[in-house]
């Protein structure tokens, strides 16, 4: 009984909240008429999946849409399955896809015929960060110690763990090798959580985990962050481990390791959708960004909270594609064109 009454009272609160939200924002011409699908081109439990599911929770908790939101994982072929699904759903205004860097890397590495230009850009929700982590037992306290240690050893001695193959983690590794001038062994794992645990267990020497994947081990004193691959330092100043905050981690470039990388967490829709539908979702995402749950997710994962829509977003994506093409070519990761 108490559960029912709880749900009822919660529903009532939510309705009031929704009514308030509706009155605050000018009504758009387009409204969803059936459930909205969010495609995740990755497995359950990863960063994109967590973000999509958090948004699903936020939207239903605050009743931001009249129709329910459904999250569907299509991870086959390094996410190619999900992108193809959206590309082929021409004109479907109830389908969105959340991206990670595989938007660029998967078509390049596998030759799967899909490109961001085949889809409609909606919005950049955030940029995900990459941090260079080492085991806290290891003697290297700074980037310089770490780089010197690699240089002191022959090629293929240091082991770098990362998520997937020919994707963002390996791209950073290749760039890092180039900056240091020594080859490393790259060991791909299925997920970022597994990479962090392999590092804690000393089975690898370093990782470029996203903040959220490694923060628990940092707080427990098992891992040490050396530098962040964003061009600027992270904004979050709350103490995480000891008296260190995310803001205290130097950028890799300032620490003498000239490698920069951030990962897009953004949304696309199928081709041929109306402008009204796109602006409906842009408004929806703006509302999502105002909720405390979203702010908490951003702080937990130390995300870069850049938000872009329209031409600005499309321009950013086009530049990111060019950057990836350069990196992938240089690393020899491009699929042979038939």
């Amino acid at each position, binding site marked *: 009984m*108490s559960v029912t009454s709880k749900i009822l009272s919660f529903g009532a609160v939510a309705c009031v909240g929704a009514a308030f939200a509706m009155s605050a924002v000018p009504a758009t011409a387009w409204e969803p008429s059936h459930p909205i699908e969010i495609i995740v081109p990755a*497995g*359950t439990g990863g960063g994109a999946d967590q973000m999509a599911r958090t948004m699903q929770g936020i939207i*239903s908790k605050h009743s931001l849409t009249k129709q329910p939101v459904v999250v569907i994982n299509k991870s086959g072929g*390094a996410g190619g399955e999900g992108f193809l699904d959206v590309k082929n759903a021409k004109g479907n205004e109830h389908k969105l896809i959340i991206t990670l860097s595989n938007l660029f890397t998967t078509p390049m590495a596998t030759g799967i015929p899909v490109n961001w230009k085949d889809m409609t850009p909606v919005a950049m929700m955030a940029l995900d960060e990459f941090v260079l982590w080492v085991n806290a037992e290891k003697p290297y306290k700074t980037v310089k110690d770490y780089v010197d240690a690699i240089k002191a050893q022959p090629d293929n001695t240091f*082991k770098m763990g990362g998520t997937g193959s020919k994707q963002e983690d390996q791209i950073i590794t290749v760039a890092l090798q180039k900056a240091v001038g020594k080859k490393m062994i790259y060991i*791909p794992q299925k*997920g970022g959580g597994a990479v962090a645990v392999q590092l804690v267990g000393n089975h690898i020497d370093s990782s470029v985990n996203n903040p959220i994947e490694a923060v628990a081990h940092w707080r427990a004193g098992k891992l040490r962050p050396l530098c962040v691959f964003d061009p600027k330092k992270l904004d979050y100043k709350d103490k995480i481990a000891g008296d260190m905050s995310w803001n205290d981690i130097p950028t890799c470039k300032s620490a003498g390791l000239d490698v920069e990388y951030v990962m897009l967490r953004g949304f696309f829709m199928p081709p041929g959708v109306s402008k009204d539908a796109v602006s409906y979702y842009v408004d929806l995402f703006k509302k999502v960004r105002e909720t405390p749950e979203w702010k908490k997710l951003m702080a937990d994962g130390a995300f870069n909270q850049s938000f872009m829509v329209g031409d600005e977003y499309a321009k950013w994506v086009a530049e990111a594609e060019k950057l990836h093409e350069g990196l992938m070519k240089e690393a020899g990761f491009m699929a042979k064109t038939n």
Partner: protein
Amino acid sequence: MFEDIGNLMHGFAVVLQPQNLLLMVVGIVLGVIVGVLPGLGGANGVAILLPLTFSMSPTSAIIMLSCIYWGALFGGAITSILFNIPGEPWSVATTFDGYPMAQQGRAGEALTAAFTSSFVGALFAVIMITLVAPLVASFALRFGPAEIFSVYFLAFCSFVGLSKEPPFKTIAAMMLGFALGAVGLDQMTGQLRLTFGFESLLSGFDFLIAVIGLFGIGEILLTMEEGLSFRGKAAKINLKVVIQTWKELPKYWMLSLRSCLIGCWMGISPAGATPASFMSYGIAKRISKRGHNFGKGEIEGVVAPETAAHAAGTAALLPMLALGVPGSPTAAVLLGGLLIWGLQPGPLLFVEQTEFVWGLIASMYMGNIVGLIVVLTCVPLFAAILRIPFSVIAPIILVLCAIGAYTVHNNTFDVVMMLVFGVVGYFMKKANYPLAPMVLAIVLGDKAEESFRQSLLGSQGSLGVFFSNALVSTVMTLGLIALFWPIIQEGISRVRVAMGAARPAQ
């Protein structure tokens, strides 16, 4: 230690609140339904229901979600035994003896044994978690790629050579399984393999689709050929069968204990429940006096895999909480849930969120007890399903299989694949090719390959990495012993025969 017990008691107090008890029963029932529908599975079930829990307190939410998990674990056994359709990878081994038992009219017995064993396995693992949680977490850290591969190696070795079919057919079926498992993206190089340019093959052959087809559809085709009737329609349908089976079960305490230990160990090492169930079944068959009877409806063949799978499934939650690495897809979704509720899985969770952690552990105890009661009272009901005429039940099974296959990836192509696998399964059975080795290869093949290649990457190609420390050497040696066990056993029996021949002379 005493502080922990105090925390646990506090956890029980939280769990026993009427609201939470109600959530628990709701969770179990939903979980059983999810488990019964093949393909829907615990991971999808939890994912669908996750948003419902955002308005609850984290403790209530995890109680409900973990009960869905338990319910799905229990439910997976039902279809395995009644229809030869395993709903989850770790239920495959349960079909080997569970389904023959159902065909002999002993469905009630098989279900009771399966549910009770699941309960025993899970309970054993929870007690272990309660007592040695911190130790266990640090043990899990010792598993690098080589160690993980050695565990898969042991799982394969303890299973090879089990089937009655000629070794050549076993190997052929297993190789076919490896080939099917290799389709899709190669995790190590990021290249597509064996897709021949077909976009539908990008995601490879999901284990569940293969199994639903090979076992479920294949079985229906066979039954149709044999005259459209279930052989198990004489199933007894009263609760006495539960009591009768319970009287018999204590005999197998040694088997249960061994299966519990195998399960816990596999659950903590990141290999998980599926190899645990296969390994436990394989070892039970080798050691049991009635081993020759396995596969023909032997109750020990139900007890061994179910106990181990559930001990492993439960023990696998520990690395998830303590290290943040999910041991199964369901655990991965639960992990996402934890983050949304603002809880950070990791070494500090046990220190910072004591109420949550001990509430969860208490809910594991209670959830299993409530689950056992719920499913046991339904045993006659489940067994009675077999009394429904085949012409009515077969279309229903077909529809459920199709829904299940579709749900795995939301892909209609998978439904077609399921039917193809059904026909393949039918012909393999007709030609006496064993299905189990093929399924084992599809489920574990790509994971074993991945850890094998990770190890060799790390060692720069040297196989010495598999004997580089005490842990990995021990597991590899155990694997080799298991592989050559038939030869060793023959050696032992020859010695025995020789001694036996000597004895009458005395």
